[in-house]
């Protein structure tokens, strides 16, 4: 018996190893090519992509990736960019279903090591950006994030992220930074909802704590009171009820959560109801406003439960009413049979900017290395303007968009046949950038 057990255990282990090896050989590696006929005569260049694309992050990453893919496919149909056919080198920075800065850095190294990558879109999360920018900066790769909002990625403190080439910026973004997004929700809570006493909770991450700090400053400046400020790092066994118990008697009339639905936003709302505070509005940044339908994997409404998702408001750091009207949405829907996510159009625009830079610099560049540098120099020429799905846009010399927008959304639990969804409330322009 003992012998049989031992040999069967060895056999089982071997089988497992074999199965695992087979899994690795399966097709579908990191690189997907942009489909579509046509393409250029000069060969292929790639746009690198780093987004969280697995687990609960699917709700964030996939619609964003689709925006990039749509732009690349459309460009290829029209002959590519600057005579090149465009491909995508796609990397996933989610580990165990949550975005991971270390994985982001590894992915960035993979992307800069691919000589055909001349521009990059991503990442989705600000803490991932902090570990990616040093890598792409060293390689001089132009990087456009559709959704990063942490202030110090482009403004004060950003030189720390460029230890190798402090004077050669390469990172720019289309989302309005948190010193716009946080104050925007503060004004919304104070003026539109008429709330004066806020409980502010963050997930202690770069993005979450940063945006909550900006919210707090602005809310106090408007005349609001901060009932209490807490930070709770998300972990598998975290519990929020005691936090909400502790503020109940302080009578907050609004809650601001700095973080994402995956780092506790959904659970916090659920446990807020558990603590008997469900009637108080729960507001937060684009981290919770994923615009996903209840029931779809990783969406805020799924994690919070549709029964608990009433009175939830969120901002998206981009424009809602696209100048092209419903044109973008209908093309997106035709390609992916789904409504665009919060950052689909912005990721599409990021890709448009890079494609324009490739197209205009292709003639002057002799090889991939010089093309990569030419693209980087092009996007940091502050005089350039771009016609994108977001309208005419341009950038400051630090890489922030001059035409910043914040859009406000609210959860409507009755949408999608009772599964819940987000509805648009209003949008606000912050012209000029900073």
């Amino acid at each position, binding site marked *: 018996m*003992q012998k049989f*057990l*031992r040999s069967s*255990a060895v056999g089982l282990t071997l089988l497992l190893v074999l199965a695992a090896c087979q899994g690795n050989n399966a097709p579908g590696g990191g690189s997907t090519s942009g489909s579509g006929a046509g393409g250029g005569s000069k060969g292929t260049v790639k746009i690198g992509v780093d987004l969280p694309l*697995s*687990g*609960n*992050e699917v709700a964030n990453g996939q619609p964003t990736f689709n925006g990039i893919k749509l732009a690349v496919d459309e460009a290829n149909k029209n002959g590519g960019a600057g005579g090149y056919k465009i491909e995508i080198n796609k990397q996933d920075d989610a580990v*165990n*279903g*949550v975005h991971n800065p270390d994985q982001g850095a590894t992915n960035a190294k993979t992307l800069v090591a691919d000589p055909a990558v001349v521009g990059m879109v991503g990442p989705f999360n600000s803490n991932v950006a902090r570990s990616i920018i040093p890598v792409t900066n060293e390689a001089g790769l132009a990087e456009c994030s559709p959704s990063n909002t942490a202030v110090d990625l482009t403004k004060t403190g950003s030189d720390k992220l460029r230890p190798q080439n402090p004077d050669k910026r390469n990172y720019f973004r289309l989302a309005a930074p948190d010193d716009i997004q946080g104050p925007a929700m503060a004004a919304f809570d104070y003026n539109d909802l008429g709330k004066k006493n806020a409980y502010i909770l963050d997930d*202690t991450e770069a993005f979450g704590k940063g945006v909550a700090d900006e919210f707090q400053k602005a809310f106090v400046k408007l005349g609001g009171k901060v009932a*209490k400020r*807490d*930070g*709770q790092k998300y*972990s*598998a*066994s975290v*519990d929020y*009820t*005691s*936090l909400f*118990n*502790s503020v*109940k*008697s*302080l009578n907050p009339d609004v809650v601001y959560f700095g973080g994402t639905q*995956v780092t506790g936003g*959904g*659970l916090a709302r*659920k*446990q807020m*109801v*558990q*603590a*008997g505070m469900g009637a108080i509005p729960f507001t937060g940044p684009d981290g919770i406003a994923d615009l996903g339908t209840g029931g779809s*994997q*990783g969406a805020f409404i*799924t*994690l919070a*439960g549709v*029964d608990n998702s009433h009175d939830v408001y969120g901002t998206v750091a981009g424009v809602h009413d696209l100048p092209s009207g419903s044109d973008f949405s209908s093309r997106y829907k035709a390609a992916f049979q789904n409504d665009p996510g919060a950052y689909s159009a912005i990721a599409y625009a990021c890709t448009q900017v890079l494609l324009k830079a490739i197209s205009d610099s292709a003639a002057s560049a002799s090889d991939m290395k010089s093309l990569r540098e030419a693209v980087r120099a092009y996007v940091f020429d502050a005089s350039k303007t771009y016609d994108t799905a977001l309208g005419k846009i341009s950038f400051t010399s630090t890489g922030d968009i001059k035409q910043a927008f914040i859009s406000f959304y609210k959860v409507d639990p009755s949408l999608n046949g009772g599964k819940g969804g987000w509805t648009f409330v209003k949008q606000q322009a912050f012209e000029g950038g900073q």
Partner: protein
Amino acid sequence: MTFRILRLALIAAGALVISWLLMIGLTWLGTRSESFSNVVATGTAQYFSALTIGAIYALIALGYTMVYGIIELINFAHGDVFMVGAFVAYLIFTSLGFGGAIKSIPLLIGILLLGFLVTMVVLGVLGAAIERFAYRPLRNAPRLAPLITAIGVSFILQNVVQVLISNSPVPSPQLVSLEYRFTLLGASVPLLNLLIFLVAVVLMIALQVFVGGTRLGRAMRSTAQDREAAQLMGVNINATIAITFFIGSALAGAAGLIYGLYKGNIVFNLGFDAGLKAFTAAVLGGIGNTVGAALGGFAIGFIEVAAVTTGLSRWQEALVFSVLILVLVFRPAGILGQQIGERA
């Protein structure tokens, strides 16, 4: 026997009252400007949160301590057994078609009882199987071998759930509606919290009665005391150890089910975090000692909530483990000590 249980009950009741007052005091420290009635209400709400979290840690800690008591193995896979329990309960409830609150009370009780029964049996069998295949062949091997095997089993369980079910949090059905609440001293507490505490207490009393008062329990205690002597007296060692694993894992299964009901989100790696805290609870109470494990579990739940209520939420983990270090410096064997005589 009856005297011992009576004494325990008295001590437990005393501890419950004292910790309640302590929590109200700590809440007052955290929110000094508040009116007295507000402090009492907040402290009471916090107290019930602490009892609920503590009950879950305590149920897991029992499995650690029972296994250590009988074969002196720190079963690092135990936290993941708890996690599997949460997922088994999730699969039972969702496959029966229950995704949310059940309105009919008799149906709710029936489904919960069925859930507990099936989850505990499945997990008990899983625990006994882990012992049979991963630990028993190594029973006479050097200490490190089963320890590493336990870590291996932990990773295997996580990996299996990660691949077969989900690699990220899944919403587990909250069968008990949060609308069922009771109000005590101004605090509105979900009935679910009280239910969880009571279920945990019933299971712990059942365990005490089983270990202290049945033939099998006596076999467990004697095996823990001196395995060879017990064998000479006719105790079936293999069966006794298997039963210990069965019971410990069944309790972890119950804890998993409770966790899912309470939290509403479960994830494949939650066993590591919760398991580490529960292991700490077992050491804090005195490893090998079942009463100590329960006490340690509640103590950790209490410290976690106390950290929040005093406004030190960012320091939660440091506080929990500072208390552990302090206790161990002054009482290396834990609060209640190892109780070598009847440590099973």
